[in-house]
């Protein structure tokens, strides 16, 4: 459970004062970041990585909308489709791949400010929602989850 919600993999997350955040790694030698956390640094080839919460806000770097139901290993529930997908630049850290709450191409734009939320993507065998991370517009007045 993260922030009181069942997630696809709790190891992806860390609770912060601002709310749930993605848990990444930072190289203590060269400052490169990764997500999820890993032991080796892909930039300097070292192995001095420390855990670090990733920024909960960023800007949309690229986006698309998933136009068909993927084959397994996808386990999503139809009522949560279609879904948007994007890469979000987290300032000073990295560019993370993520689901997007917005699915209307007219409302998605590279460079728009976004923030992280937990969003349901499937229902478990009892009908309870399982969550993953997604980003949503953080512009004032934008639609929310």
């Amino acid at each position, binding site marked *: 459970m993260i922030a009181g919600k069942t997630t696809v993999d709790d190891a992806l997350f860390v609770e912060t004062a601002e709310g749930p955040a993605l848990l990444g790694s930072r190289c203590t030698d060269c400052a490169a970041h990764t997500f999820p956390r890993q032991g080796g640094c892909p930039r300097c080839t070292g192995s001095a990585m420390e855990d670090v919460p990733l920024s909960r806000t960023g800007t949309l770097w690229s986006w698309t909308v998933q136009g068909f139901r993927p084959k397994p290993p996808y386990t999503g529930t139809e009522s949560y489709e279609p879904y948007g*997908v994007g890469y979000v630049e987290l300032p000073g850290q*990295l560019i993370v791949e993520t689901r997007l709450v917005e699915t209307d191409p007219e409302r998605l734009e590279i460079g728009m400010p976004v923030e992280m939320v937990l969003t349901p993507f499937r229902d478990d065998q009892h009908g309870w929602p399982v969550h993953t991370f997604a980003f949503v517009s953080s512009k004032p007045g934008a639609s929310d989850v």
Partner: protein
Amino acid sequence: MSEVSGSGVAIVGIGMHRFGRTEGVSGRAQAVHAARAALADAGLKFSDMQFGFGGSHSAGDADTLVSELGLTGLPFINVANGCATGGSALIAADAAIRSGQHDVGIVIGFDKHPRGAFNTDPAEHGIGAWYGETGLMVTTQFFGLKIKRYLYEHGIAPGVLATIAEKAFRNGARNPMAWRRKEIDAAEIAAAPMISHPLTQYMYCSPAEGAVALVLCRADKARGYTEHPVFLQGAAFRSRRYGSFEVFSPWTAAERAGSPTAEAAAAAFAAAGIAPSEVDVAQIQDTESGAELMHTAETGLCAHGEQEELIASGATAIEGRLPVNTDGGCLANGEPIGASGLRQVYENVLQLRGGAGEHQVPGDPRVGFTHVYGAPGISACTVLTR
């Protein structure tokens, strides 16, 4: 470019099993068909082969083909490198001959995939199960994301994506070995169902079936086998750097870097001593329209942003000044992963021999270039001359 001597490498035999769907014929049987055709083209027998390299993604181990081709004791090494399987096998063969270890050998790529998009297990890529479960491990989706960013960075209008697919099907219609041989106009391509914005259904290739084999030998022995050898002047393979934006990436670095395509292409041109501007015919990885657009610039064949004008003006058509994907590419041939890279070489050999018939590039082409790209961020390129 004159004939190289001594340690150079030549292609003296080519064989193909038609791409597409061939019900009732296994991938291995298609590979045997291609191998026999390549051997016949070179006037050789399988017992003349001193080595073999080959692979498939979904149709079995290449080294088991010897049970059909002949149990001659040759070293036959399986290659498994995703979309660069064929290119990697070719590079291994190039090294085996160039080093002086062997004089003549065969490379075989084949495949037979189920219908629909590839479904990949994240664990095979060292990624957690969550990545597949939440619907992020989808190649078609990545290609939408990648071209969206590329169009934005270079100020290119998305209309060019339909024009590229239109050209692929036009070329496929002129190639008797292609899978998709019906022309589709750009308006119909643009109006097809959206798969991953901005890419529609007809802008993507499909997993398919097919096989290609090549017989290679020392360049100085080539004319003993054929009157029209094609020389492998440069071949290079590269994986991704920190900061390149590649398929199956849960994250990428904010600090940008060159792509494996750019590095493999530069290395292949450098090895050949040939400039991209000298290329007369090019086969470029076009898993979808956006891939051809990006890779034409990444390989050095044009500048980033220049493609829109090149494509609109017809320069990349068979009769243009830089013909690209003259056999219809992946879009018209489908993508049997193990065979796809070798299809490109097969097509260039045909073109350089002047034997491509209805899809022959006019003007007696002398320099050919091939490029494959695939997960998880790999590329293999070749430069060929006659």
